[in-house]
């Protein structure tokens, strides 16, 4: 029971972190139609920039400055790269972001090398806030939780209470109409891209110290962010939130419980072969839930796309 509570908290942290990435991506995706493959690369840039800044000015300045730099870089890439490619259509746009992801990873390796960076949480947060049945909950985790909540609330406020937010929301559902209404759509695009990438940057800054700051961190997270927004449904912030939490909890719980396929098979009436090494199905018999935990989201996505192509909360086809 205690472990369930701990897992709920852990899953929440993972889920909200994922949400910071998927929120920006769903905005970009639904407004501009761009499957931004480089989104997770901005998350990586956030972590590396923050690490570099933290060497000179400490963690907190990194938290403040790094996302801004990432956002500016994102806006710049939109302005001088993506906008140019936009005229050629969606596939070239996608290849552009694909190549961009590759290039960013290479540049990061060129500048910082290929090793893990010793990027750690600030001293002030390096203590155990409380324990549940022997399971320590580090203060930094709760800090991550508060940060992501804060950003979610701020985002919700901007989108529902401000004029810019209204335009963006309208653009999510009716991208063509908004253009027709005379809004400066390129500027909105650039702004959304900048803010979206900055959000990814924030995620990188706060996740870097716990999940590791290394050149593979973008690739590790890259496709799962797509999976999240597709499951949630395009253009739906709530969908992104729900899907993020869902994936956070699914992966956490799947990793936590050693449900073995053998038990399930025996329970439904199959007989375990005496000599597993000779059986053609030996891999099935030895399968456990933690083994397949991280690929469950993909399975979920395929099933959702086959039976409900617009995702959980989406109104139009992805």
């Amino acid at each position: 029971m205690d472990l369930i509570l701990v897992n709920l908290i852990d899953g929440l942290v993972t889920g909200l972190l994922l949400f910071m990435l998927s929120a920006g991506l769903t905005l970009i995706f639904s407004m501009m139609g761009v499957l931004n493959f480089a989104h997770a690369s901005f998350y990586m840039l956030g972590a590396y920039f923050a690490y570099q800044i933290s060497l000179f000015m400490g963690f907190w300045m990194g938290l403040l400055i790094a996302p801004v730099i990432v956002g500016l870089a994102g806006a710049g890439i939109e302005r001088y790269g993506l906008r140019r490619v936009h005229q050629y259509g969606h596939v070239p746009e996608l290849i552009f972001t694909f190549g961009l992801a590759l290039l960013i990873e290479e540049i990061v390796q060129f500048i910082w090398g290929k090793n893990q960076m010793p990027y750690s949480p600030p001293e002030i947060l390096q203590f155990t806030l409380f324990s549940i049945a022997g399971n320590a909950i580090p203060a930094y985790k709760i800090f991550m939780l508060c940060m992501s909540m804060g950003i979610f609330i701020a985002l919700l406020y901007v989108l529902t209470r401000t004029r810019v937010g209204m335009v963006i929301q309208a653009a999510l559902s009716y991208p063509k109409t908004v253009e027709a209404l005379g809004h400066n759509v390129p500027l909105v695009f650039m702004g959304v891209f900048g803010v979206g990438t900055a959000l990814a940057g924030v995620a990188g800054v706060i996740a870097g110290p716990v999940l590791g700051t290394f050149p593979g961190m973008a690739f590790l997270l890259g496709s799962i962010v797509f999976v999240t927004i597709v499951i949630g449904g395009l253009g739906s912030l709530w969908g992104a939130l729900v899907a993020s939490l869902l994936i956070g909890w699914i992966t956490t719980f799947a990793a936590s419980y050693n449900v073995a396929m053998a038990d399930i098979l025996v329970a439904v009436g199959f007989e375990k072969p005496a000599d597993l090494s000779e059986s053609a199905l030996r891999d099935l018999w030895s399968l456990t839930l933690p083994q397949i935990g991280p690929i469950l989201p993909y399975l979920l996505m395929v099933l959702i796309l086959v039976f409900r192509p617009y995702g959980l909360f989406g109104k139009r086809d992805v």
Partner: protein
Amino acid sequence: MNRQAVQNQTTAPQGGVTLATALPWIISTIVLLFIPLVFTSNSAITIMNQMAITIIFALAYNMLLGQGGMLSFGHAIYMGFGGFVSVHVINYVEDYSLPLPLPVLPLLGGLAGLALAILIGSFSTRKAGTVFAMISLGVGELIAACSVIIVVFFGGEEGVSGDRTYGLPVFGIEFLQQIEVYYLIVFWLLLSALLMYLFSRTPVGRMANAVRDNPERAEFLGYSARWVRFFSFCASGFFCGIAGGLFAINYEILTEENLNLVQSGSILLITFLGGVGFFFGPIIGAIVFTLLSTVLSLQTDLWQLYVGALFLAAVMYFPGGLAGVIMMHWPAFKMGNIRLLIGPYIKTFTPCLVGILGTAALIEMTFHFRHAAIGDEEMTLFWTTFNSHSVLPWLLVVAVTAAAFWLTRRNLPEMVAAWHTANSLPGVSK
């Protein structure tokens, strides 16, 4: 945007077989047959084998992307599956001494790829666009993940290996040497390329183009977009499987890397780099990419940086890929104006190339400066050895690079003007 129109146009020669349509095939065949006489080393042949396999794979991929407008993020699984089945067949045939000659093995690989494509395509081709793309990503990831879990079939991390020299010699050939395998691959390359080319000329191939451009209109012409996509998908899976079978013969080992997303991503990049708008585009892409990854990686550790930059530059400035660049010149060539371009091209692209090489040199020098061993300050670049820690080479390279780019910029208007002249007939405005 004249370029846009030209590059996206589907080339469709009329009438039956003419010398003009057959000529590229004849030339390719002759070149493929005689090239091993020029490059006799095993490594060159190995690289050419790799190229040929990649060409088949890329052409098969372009049946989807270029001709059918379907973007797949997990296409490696069809080639990989074909390869795994082939290598299992090799082992099975060896264990039971069955009379299966090696040269027909790729066909079995193809059928395996086809079977998987039928299975996956039955639900993934219902929609095009993002739904298809994301399903392909999901399925690709699932099967790639299975490859380390289902050890019985995929062999885990070390993969499954076999020995291609199992059987009776076919016409006295035992496939001991790379060169023998080369000719086997060339045979299958020509056959598959020809079949894929002909496929694009069949009703279903033509309708694949129509469905790519406008699925709704195609539906109102009596064709179900879904079935057209499904048939293209299956055909693509079949040829991917053939590539997989050849991979099994050439490398005699299949591993998890044949299925993973890296492989799927690179075939997308290869195809796009070559140009999706033309049948021969992926061929160029496969050749260039194989050279980059084998030859450039021998020269520098930073090759992936350059490849990444190349892709970005290509997609920004040449969205039609390398084939698009070549075909851009076709109108001028037909009008006999190509010579007008030669001078301006030399004047612009020579400094441009120098500038790019200069930039690369600066990157290499920075890298060397930061990572070289102490006392090991000498580096060799473009057949020149110098000290990367002294100021002079830096000044020199910076100056040359800057001058080269300045010259490029200065000569650019002239080239653009020449381009317009070369592409306009007297009295005809574009």
